């Protein structure tokens, strides 16, 4: 395979990754790593570099629209970014001491968790009263709906902050956005309505990924020949996805995608245990 065909196939793969990532909310990174490692037999460290780039591209691309619509809670995102960026720096340091097959196994586990999170029941309920810390840090807000703006309050700020630190660490170690863990922290712990938590999580992914990407770029994980088809493909795919999202029902797509992701994850875990990375 020449560089030319490699680039074309990767461009197509990245396009599909961006498309599936934006339709299911999983982000572009989770598909890029298995595509590069299992299909192209690219070293997992280059794949992590590429996934970070993909995560920043999808996050920034779609966040620009959500922020303007006023759904994203910018203060909540900013506050929790302390946890995710600190976690990401720790993750990037841990990566030096973590064998690549362990990284692959962790990635597989994270993938299965993400697939399960995609299928969970979503709660749009808004709390009437928040916890003491939610007022102290001005984290409560409102977001626009068809029937006018809805106010919501937050709970369990400490628990949310802790899960976010873990999400940041995994993001720094594995190169993914950890969107699933971020949503878990906001939905399940802090009781943020899911439209706000999804968009705020997406908003945070770019900053979290940038915190470790500056380290990985200097470590030589980001290769130009892999990076450019990934950036262009993922951006184009995410753009198509955001247009399609309004028109199609994504529930069956999410189910198919989750099953596919789980199979890929098992493959990654199997290969990890057999030291095939």
């Amino acid at each position, binding site marked *: 395979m020449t560089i030319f065909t490699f680039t074309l196939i990767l461009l197509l793969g990245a396009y599909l990754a961006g498309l599936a990532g934006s339709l299911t909310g999983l982000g572009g990174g989770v598909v890029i790593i298995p595509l590069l490692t299992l299909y192209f037999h690219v070293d997992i460290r280059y794949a992590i570099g590429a996934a970070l780039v993909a995560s920043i591209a999808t996050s920034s691309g779609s966040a620009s629209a959500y922020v303007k619509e006023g759904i994203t809670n910018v203060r909540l995102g900013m506050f929790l970014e302390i946890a995710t960026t600190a976690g990401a720096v720790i993750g990037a340091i841990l990566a*030096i001491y973590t064998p690549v097959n362990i990284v692959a196994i962790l990635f597989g586990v994270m993938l299965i968790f993400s697939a399960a999170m995609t299928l969970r029941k979503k709660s749009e309920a808004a709390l009437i009263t928040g916890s003491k810390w939610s007022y102290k840090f001005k984290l409560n807000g409102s977001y626009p709906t068809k029937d006018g703006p809805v106010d919501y309050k937050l709970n369990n700020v400490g628990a949310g902050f802790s899960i976010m630190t873990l999400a940041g660490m995994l993001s720094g170690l594995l190169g993914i956005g950890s969107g699933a863990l971020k949503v878990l922290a906001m939905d399940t712990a802090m009781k943020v309505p899911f439209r706000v938590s999804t968009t705020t999580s997406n908003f945070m992914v770019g900053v979290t990924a940038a915190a470790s990407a500056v380290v990985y770029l200097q470590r030589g994980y980001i290769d130009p020949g892999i990076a450019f088809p990934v950036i262009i493909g993922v951006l184009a795919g995410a753009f198509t996805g955001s247009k399609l999202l309004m028109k199609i029902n994504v529930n069956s797509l999410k189910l198919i995608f989750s099953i596919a992701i789980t199979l890929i994850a098992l493959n990654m875990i199997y290969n990890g245990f057999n030291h095939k990375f």
Partner: protein
Amino acid sequence: MTTKENKKMTDYDMEQLIGQVLRLGVLISGSVAIVGGIWYLYQQGSGLPHYSTFNGEPAGYTSLTGILSGLAKGSASEIIQLGVVILIATPIVRIFFSLVSFIIEKDRLYIVITSIVLFIILFSMFAGLKV
């Protein structure tokens, strides 16, 4: 009432500004990557990929000075890496603009919070964690 209205306006303005910054960053980095990518394929498209073993990238691709000196020579790989750097810089610039907005809004709590996030990223950038 007026103070509350004003505050709402600046929050709204900040959201529009942040959205604009993110969109612009993605557009510029995507365009630079396309230009570099086409040039790269023209130069090296018939070669063979070498990604199954990890060698790390040469110094020219991993530092800003290296990328800039490669650009001066018209090297395609460095043009792509410039696109990558712009992409990584986009969320960081977004934080910087948030900081400015919070300063204008005189939201002291969030000036501190945003500065902490900015500090962590700058630490990550310059602390020499690349080992």
